[in-house]
């Protein structure tokens, strides 16, 4: 009798050893009179319970379900409870790192500690580098905005050296100006001197654009004014010769030993309104004349720039004298307009297109002429960037 009950217990323990725990409890004998046997069954039950609890917990652990509470007071799983605790700790650590908390360290978890800790160190380093980058980015932004502010301010100073509208209006009865520097500042300017009866007007294209170009324009205006003060404005050729020398002297003096080679192109047109006489002299700049019987005609300037090292200080600039019929348009423009590359074919705006615009707008109001020319220019340019400063100074007589 007892033997078969012992056999049942042995069978259950064997099943347990194979990891099969379902229904094991029912297999154990019950209602035992033998005290020792009852004790044996009681311990077997505890063993089976502990084992099946442990099995459930270990399954959860191997699935990574760390939220499962480990069974209390179960000695089978002691090392796994520690593993469970360590994994939970690592999970927390990782979450902290994800939140940007790089203060943490993993202690005494073998190879994992050093791997994890060195990861945190490199993240920390990365963050330091990032914040340094961020800082220098901020500094650059600030420096840039300071530069932009000062360029804006310099832009308004440059506008101040241009002839004021009041002066233009009082001397010229019919005129328009296009002054579009590529940047806030430019290397182009226009100039006007004289009175209603007699005056000279000019466009100037200095080397470069932006800030260096703008500084050159200040010098150009100073030289022009000084030359005009010395010899007047009735002889444009002589004026150019004088400016050539003044610019060369000024620039060589300032850039001695350096590789700078700066200068300018210029067109100066003297007008005697009473005699309807024009004298033109240009350095790489043309005068365009348009009247009733002639289509736009280009009066070329000399093929020589002012102020460069290569500019000959003794160069003689030609004066071209014209007598104007009724209603004549005079146009001066720098190369920024003529040379502008177009969007569709990559071809320059060109003299042909410029002359056509002049002819098309002949006889209309200055504002209409201005808009017509600008529209033509902008259509040609399309999405292409403006390459150079653009200046047009046009008058009607």
């Amino acid at each position: 009798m007892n033997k078969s009950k012992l056999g049942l217990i042995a069978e259950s323990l064997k099943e347990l050893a194979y990891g099969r725990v379902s229904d094991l409890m029912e297999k154990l004998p019950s209602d035992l009179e033998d005290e020792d046997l009852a004790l044996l069954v009681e311990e077997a039950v505890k063993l089976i319970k502990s084992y099946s609890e442990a099995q459930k917990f270990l399954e959860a652990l191997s699935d990574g379900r760390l939220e499962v509470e480990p069974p209390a007071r179960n000695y089978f799983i002691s090392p796994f409870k520690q593993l469970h605790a360590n994994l939970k700790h690592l999970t927390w650590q990782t979450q902290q790192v994800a939140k940007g908390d790089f203060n943490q360290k993993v202690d005494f978890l073998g190879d994992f500690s050093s791997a994890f800790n060195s990861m945190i160190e490199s993240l920390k380093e990365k963050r330091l580098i990032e914040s340094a980058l961020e800082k220098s980015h901020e500094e650059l932004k600030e420096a840039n905005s300071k530069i932009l502010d000062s360029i804006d301010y310099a832009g308004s100073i440059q506008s101040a050296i241009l002839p004021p509208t009041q002066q233009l209006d009082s001397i010229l009865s019919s005129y328009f100006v296009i002054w579009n520097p590529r940047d806030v500042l430019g290397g182009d300017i226009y100039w006007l001197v004289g009175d209603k009866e007699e005056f000279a007007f000019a466009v100037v294209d200095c080397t470069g654009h932006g800030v260096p170009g703008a500084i050159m324009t200040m010098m150009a205006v100073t030289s022009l004014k000084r030359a005009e003060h010395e010899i007047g404005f009735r002889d444009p050729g002589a004026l150019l010769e004088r400016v050539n020398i003044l610019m060369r002297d000024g620039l060589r003096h300032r850039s001695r030993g350096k590789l700078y080679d700066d200068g300018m192109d210029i067109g100066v047109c003297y007008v005697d309104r009473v005699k309807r006489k024009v004298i033109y002299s240009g350095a790489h700049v043309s005068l365009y004349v348009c009247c009733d019987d002639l289509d736009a005609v280009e009066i070329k300037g000399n093929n020589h720039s002012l102020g460069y090292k290569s500019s000959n200080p003794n160069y003689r600039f030609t004066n071209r004298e014209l007598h104007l019929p009724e209603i004549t348009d005079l146009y001066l423009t720098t190369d920024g307009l003529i040379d502008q590359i177009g969007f569709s074919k990559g071809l320059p705006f060109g003299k042909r297109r410029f002359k056509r615009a002049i002819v098309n707008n002949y006889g209309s109001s200055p504002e209409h002429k201005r808009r017509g020319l600008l529209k033509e220019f902008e259509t040609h340019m399309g999405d292409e960037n403006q390459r150079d400063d653009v200046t047009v100074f046009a008058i009607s007589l």
Partner: protein
Amino acid sequence: MFKEERSGYKFEWKDLGDIEQGRPNLGPTTSVSVYRLMQYTLRDVLITRYGVKAANEILYEAGKLAGSEFCKNLMNLDADFSGFVAQLQDTLKNLNVGVLRIEKADLDNMDFVMTVSEDLDCSGLPLVEETVCDYDEGFISGILKTYTGKEFEVKEVDCWATGDRTCRFTAKLKHF
């Protein structure tokens, strides 16, 4: 200073004395068994004289006072929580108290779970059916109270002595 009657705690960090001066040859550390010898004999006497419940309460209370003084004197209380935890983990390790590992820190609800491995009080004890780290519970609650200014109820849910290899503590805000 040590022996007058009192109605409130009078312990101060300087009562620990100048160990460097006092122990030039033996140094500031001792054997863990000596520490445990004192704690478990004291516990024995406390239980005998006042019963289990009162003894546990006394140990918890003493731990709390120790934790609070430890925190005030050795920790930087201005650190943010993550910095504080890292610092605490480091200090406990350097003083050979135990290896602190946070499992959960819910700062919104002030709900924490942490483990202390290689615990000074219990790691390696014979397995019994009960948690024994009452002093540690108090110690942690003292630290938390000093850092957060709030009362915590700290409970040891797993202990080396209950076969869990590591001591796991839960800390929740105490509701009065």
